[in-house]
């Protein structure tokens, strides 16, 4: 690593600005450097490294063993306390932690408020503990019968007799002659012996099936739990830098993405592990990077920015592209508002490369994705807000280009579907089909297929007609790839399927009046 030559940095920056403005109301030659000056800035920084120990307790059913096994919970807790102490003051853990941090691509630079678990130093301890519920027995006395193995009969509730069902407990019943006579089942006793408990009033406990005990649920009958405690050291970092003498543009950038700046060589650092006054660990850094101010002349107007790092990152650059493409935006807005011939306005707007790309991206992908893709191409010189509004306007403009053709396509597609449905339903064809299917469910499936086919056909005709108009409006942006112009069908795509379904139902209803075969499902409720 070495610090880049300031002259090269200025040239690099110029290249970036030329690439952005070329074709956007400006040409490479009309972008020049007016003034550039810079210096190498040195700074000191420190990443504090503190070790925190996380313990994770887990209780598992059964007799298991994980890591160091200890016979009692007290012994395990003592061993865990010892392990924590060992990690906190052990030389090898300190060494491992320093190595881990220095081994990162960013060497820990600007690592603030990060928690890094040290899996290599993780230790597990386990011990067995008897189940509290069953005292390690694996089973508990049945709650339903209190261990008695029997419970009260559910039929007679322990009364041994139940009311006679024949006479509803009246003892009398209406005879064939209409007169009341004694019930023949209970012999006028109004009740009969309970058939479920054979007159004992008790029955085998349903909960324990007469066992008196039931398997303990928490320990699944094993009587034992295994307590597993994991001890995991976690590095906690705190980044501190000397802000004095730093340009304010650099401070925020380093705080936000210092680690990426180091990784990608925007800045150079020397890292060295040190012991803090309080005995803690830290990594000390000496960082260096070029920083300067540059002013470009774009179409004769001055545009200035800060120049940061070995790769000439441009900071504080005002959105100069927004001015450059203003005339194009006006045309695009007209297209979006249906002002004048839309296709011509779009053509005019896409004379600016940036707008042309926005239109193309909007035509091919969802709006959010299009914004991201455009941002990638134009990371500088235009605000996010402007990019979003540009994509939104482009979307409206494209919608206008295809609106009329889409509805023409919808009409054509639905007409064709209608003709097909007529040919099927209003002739004998459907009757023959229905006979061979001989099943309302299959007929219904057939209806679904037919509707889908009609909708699909219409969807296709919409695409076809929309594509033609799109080719006319934006084909010039695509360089010999006219055939691949993608078109969004928008809501008309949905109408295609709804329309096909409605048409089909109308035809089905028509069959009843005309007298051809009506699908069987049409009469089902």
């Amino acid at each position, binding site marked *: 690593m070495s610090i880049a030559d300031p002259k090269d940095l200025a040239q690099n920056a110029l290249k970036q600005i030329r690439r952005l403005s070329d074709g956007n109301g400006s040409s490479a030659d009309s972008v020049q450097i007016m003034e550039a000056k810079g210096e190498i800035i040195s700074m000191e920084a420190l990443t504090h490294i503190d070790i925190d120990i996380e313990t994770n307790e887990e209780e598992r059913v059964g*007799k*298991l*063993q994980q*890591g*160091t*096994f*200890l*016979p*009692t919970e*007290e*012994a*395990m807790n*003592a*061993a*865990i*306390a*010892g*392990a*924590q*102490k*060992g990690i906190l003051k*052990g030389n*090898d853990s300190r060494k491992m932690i320093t190595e881990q941090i220095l081994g990162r691509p960013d060497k820990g630079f600007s690592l603030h408020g990060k928690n890094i678990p040290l899996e290599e130093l993780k230790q597990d*301890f386990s011990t*067995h503990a008897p189940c509290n519920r069953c005292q390690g027995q694996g089973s508990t006395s049945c709650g339903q019968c209190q261990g008695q193995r029997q419970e009260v009969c559910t039929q007679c509730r322990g009364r041994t007799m139940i009311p006679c069902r024949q006479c509803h407990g009246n003892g009398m019943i209406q005879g064939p002659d209409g007169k009341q006579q004694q019930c023949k089942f209970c012999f006028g006793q109004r009740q009969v012996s309970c058939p479920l408990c054979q007159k004992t009033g008790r029955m085998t406990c349903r909960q324990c099936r007469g066992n008196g005990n039931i398997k303990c649920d928490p320990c699944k009958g094993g009587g034992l739990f295994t307590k597993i405690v994991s001890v995991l050291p976690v590095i906690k970092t705190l980044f501190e830098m000397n802000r004095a003498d730093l340009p304010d543009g650099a401070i925020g950038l380093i705080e936000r993405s210092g680690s990426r700046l180091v990784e990608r060589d925007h800045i150079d650092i020397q890292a060295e592990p040190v012991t803090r006054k309080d005995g803690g660990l830290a990594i000390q850094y000496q960082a260096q990077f070029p920083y300067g101010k540059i002013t470009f002349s774009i179409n004769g107007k001055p545009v200035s920015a800060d120049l940061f790092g070995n790769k000439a990152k441009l900071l504080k650059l005002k959105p100069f592209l927004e001015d450059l493409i203003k005339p194009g935006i006006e045309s695009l807005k007209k297209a979006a508002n249906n002002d004048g011939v839309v296709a011509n306005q779009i053509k005019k707007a896409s004379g600016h490369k940036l707008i042309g790309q926005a239109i193309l991206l909007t035509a091919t992908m969802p709006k959010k994705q299009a914004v991201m893709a455009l941002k990638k191409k134009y990371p500088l010189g235009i605000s996010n807000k402007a990019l979003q509004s540009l994509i939104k306007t482009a979307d409206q403009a494209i919608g206008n280009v295809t609106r009329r053709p889409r509805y023409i396509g919808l009409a054509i597609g639905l007409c064709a579907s209608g003709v097909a449905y007529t040919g099927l339903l209003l002739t004998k064809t459907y009757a023959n089909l229905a006979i061979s299917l001989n099943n309302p469910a299959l007929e219904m499936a057939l209806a679904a297929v037919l509707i889908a086919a009609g909708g699909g056909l219409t969807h296709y005709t919409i695409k076809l007609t929309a594509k033609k108009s799109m080719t006319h409006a934006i084909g010039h942006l695509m360089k010999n790839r006219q055939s691949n112009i993608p078109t969004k069908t928008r809501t008309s795509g949905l109408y295609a399927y709804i329309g096909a379904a409605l048409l089909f139902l109308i035809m089905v209803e028509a069959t009843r009046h005309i007298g051809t075969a009506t699908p069987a499902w049409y009469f089902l409720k």
Partner: protein
Amino acid sequence: MTTITIPSKDGGSFNAYMAMPENVSRETKVPTVIVIQEIFGINDGIRKKCDWLASYGFMAIAPDLFWRIEPGIELSDQVPEELERAFQLFGEFNVDQGIEDLKATLHVAKGHANSTGKVGVLGYCLGGKLAYLMACRSESIASIGYYGVGIEELLVEANNISGKLMLHIAEKDGFVPPEAQHKILEAFMPNDSIILNTYPDMDHAFTREGGDNYDEENAEMADNHSIAFLNENLK
């Protein structure tokens, strides 16, 4: 019965208790057994084990393996606070560094004026595991582990055993659940250089005199096995 100082690999030094057989003159050469401590440090129990080995004609050395945490630790399993401290030390102890210190001890033992150059190790509990690891990682000719803890986690290392290994396993060891014992037996049974002795109904530390689980009869049996093993491989 003396204390010697052993230099560690990384520049420090630690003490070790040493017991010599009787009547050893300047010219006498004897084999060495390194006694590896439990989690209680170099206490009376460990010193007695050294003396016992010396009575059978071995130079016995017990290095203070907790010296990196705190030198000179001597604890008893009969005092609850000391027992808790012992488990803390167990958690804090770094096994890999412990092995380095044992290797340093082995190096010193080999070069001792009275040494035949044949060195074995014998360890209890935590030391039992370290004895196993010494068999795997060092030039120890004969290694003995009494109720070693955590060996089942280190089975793959057994591929590197060059000398002989004897393990005394307590079948009711509270530190080594049956599943762990099963793993050890399954892995080591087919290995000719490993001798496995298991003791039914014995719990952890059944040879620690004065301990809760001490069993005189089984302790004597295990010790007899050990002496025979050491005589065969070191003399």
